[in-house]
């Protein structure tokens, strides 16, 4: 796209349903030098607010989109170029790009979720990217594959990345069996078999982290690496009231305070986010599934299964990420782990680390994966 070294920063696509984003605020001023991964602006979708990171290196020459403006996916946000490029050339580039954009490329690169039958269950997954050593993203309790909205495409820049809905979650079948970690790990392993993915980098958040651990213990040959984000099963403490609240709350008013516990910044819990969780919880069978999982995971207000002492049995390299302000599973679970674990605590994040600081999480995971391919 570059003529004379002029580069575009475009509206990213965070998830299947995103067609537009609204610019909230610029985080990098015109004239500043930016490099890949730097936070450039905040964008709001109907699901969440996120930060757009630079995909290029250079000087941020022009804010093309203004705060408040709706820009289609793929639309021009900013122009990056060397300081030697004249303002006139930048003007021409912007004019040409706007004409080009009106042709709308919105659905061209939209990856659609797929469904696959695994051992009598239907599982939904979304694949982005191609080639390389594949990555599998495993969400947490009451989550779904959209929890990776801000990470999925970034991680898929140089490899295939899969995110799936666990049984009882998202649009997968509601049957969770006994709801135990071993059951989930077995389903994950069967899914890997069905997908013909022999060895993968596993990334799990919260309950997903515990499932990744259980799988690594059941099938030591499967993981190339394990990334555990605010993972369950690394200590006994848990906000059991949160888990119970998520299971029982069936109204916006009841649910919202529990969802706010997931984030350091409670303002991230938009009405849309609450509605999405409610819509999921109101589907027949979901309440029973979540209750079964909660009953299996928690006993007397503590995590029933702690795998902390088993980490030395796992040969795959491990990256452990935590939010310093996690109200659900305390960040203290990240300390004193097996010495081979790489541990990073992100001070300004709550439990949803990958949504609250995607730039840093993506950078840490991408580097870790590259070192262990």
């Amino acid at each position, binding site marked *: 796209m570059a003529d004379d070294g002029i580069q575009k920063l475009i509206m990213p696509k965070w998830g299947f349903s995103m067609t537009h984003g609204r610019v909230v605020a610029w985080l990098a001023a015109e004239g500043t030098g930016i490099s890949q991964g730097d936070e450039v602006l905040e964008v709001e979708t109907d699901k969440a607010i996120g930060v757009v990171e630079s995909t290029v290196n250079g000087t941020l020459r022009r804010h093309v989109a203004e705060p408040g403006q709706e820009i289609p996916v793929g639309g021009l946000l900013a122009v990056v170029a060397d300081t030697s490029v004249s303002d006139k050339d930048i003007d021409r580039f912007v004019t040409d790009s706007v004409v080009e954009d009106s042709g709308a490329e919105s659905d061209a690169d939209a990856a659609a979720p797929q*469904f696959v039958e695994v051992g009598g269950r239907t599982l*939904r997954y979304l694949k982005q990217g191609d080639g390389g050593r594949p990555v599998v993203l495993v969400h947490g309790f009451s989550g779904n594959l959209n929890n990776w909205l801000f990470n999925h495409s970034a991680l898929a820049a140089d490899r295939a990345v899969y995110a799936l809905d666990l049984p009882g979650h998202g*649009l997968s079948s509601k049957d969770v069996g006994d709801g135990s970690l071993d059951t989930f790990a077995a389903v994950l392993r069967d899914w890997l078999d069905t997908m013909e993915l022999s060895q993968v980098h596993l990334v799990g958040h919260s309950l997903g982290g515990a499932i990744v651990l259980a799988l690594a213990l059941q099938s030591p040959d499967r993981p190339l690496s394990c990334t555990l984000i605010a993972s369950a099963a690394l200590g006994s403490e848990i906000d059991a009231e949160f888990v119970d609240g998520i299971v029982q709350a*069936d*109204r*916006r*008013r009841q649910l919202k305070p529990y969802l706010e516990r997931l984030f350091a910044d409670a303002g991230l819990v938009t*009405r849309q986010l609450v509605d999405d969780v409610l*819509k999921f919880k*109101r*589907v*027949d*069978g979901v309440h029973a599934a979540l209750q079964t999982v909660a009953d299996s995971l928690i006993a007397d207000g503590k995590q029933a299964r702690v795998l902390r002492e088993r980490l030395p049995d796992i040969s795959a390299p491990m990256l452990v990420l935590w939010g310093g302000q996690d109200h659900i599973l305390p960040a203290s679970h990240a300390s004193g782990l097996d010495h081979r674990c790489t541990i990073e605590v992100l001070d300004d994040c709550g439990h949803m680390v990958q949504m609250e600081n995607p730039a840093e999480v993506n950078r840490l995971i991408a580097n870790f994966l590259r070192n262990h391919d």
Partner: protein
Amino acid sequence: MARTLTYQQAINEALDQEMARDDTVILMGEDVAGGQGADGEMDAWGGVLGVTKGLYGKYGDRVMDTPISESAFVGAAIGAATAGLRPVVELMFNDFMGVCFDQIFNQAAKFRYMFGGKAQTPVVIRTMIGAGFRGAAQHSQSLYSIFTHIPGLKCVVPATPYDAKGLLIEAIRDDDPVIFFEHKKLYPIEGDVPEESYTIPFGEAEIVRDGRDVTIITLAEMVHESLQAAEQLASDGIDCEVIDLRTTSPLDEETLLESVTETGRVVVVDEANPRCSMATDISALIAQQAFSALKAPIQMVTAPHTPVPFSDNLEDLYKPDAARIADAVRTVSEYQAWQTTESKN
């Protein structure tokens, strides 16, 4: 998995899934099978507008055409409900409800109360509301406020395909009599609807648009007119919150009051006639419980106190629309008397 369905298809799917799940669910009404005992009955029309099409073919005599005798068949459905079935009875137009008021108001609505909680009447009465159909005075009214007035009845007025399915399944599983009002102009509108069965609890209003300046409280087809008005007003810098009641009984007072406390300016939009209506009821609620938050008098946008006209031109004028709603919002937005008085002091 969500896909796009019309409001009409969403209602059909709710009935279909509940009939498949629970064999005590039966359908009754004029022409709900539509062609019973005649040639081609398996592909019969399914109600006056085809909402129940296909169900007779699947469920046979659990879908019953009735004579044109509302007092008899609504009474029969209520009796069947007390005896253990979960009938969904269709009373074509809510305008005809008058002929069976005793069965609804004085029988179904009172059983649980008068028998000390020992009786339950899990009946759903589906019925059409709304003007704009060129149906004239006897087929175009929106009478939900009359039923909302009666303790013991639950009243549901869905505005979207998603809500229509979830609220109808909730209605069928509910153990009390539920009047389910379907706006005939909404049947063709489309929206995302999950394939799975799901329920939406009664008494939770939906905030269909977030806004800071003015609260528009509305229901049924007027939700869509209000959203259209809100979009127009947004370009003038007026940010409207739009709340869809979804159920009028029970009524989600908390969501309404919470929003009004934030905005201080309210427009209530109701397609029905204005006297003793949802519009007056909600206005009274806000005046009583959020008076100190109000920055302007509450505005109501309703039909006039006349029957629905037969003339096309008059009917169009009769119904509230986005332009009238926008005017009312501007009126409450621009209202400054209180601030002016204050600044003089």
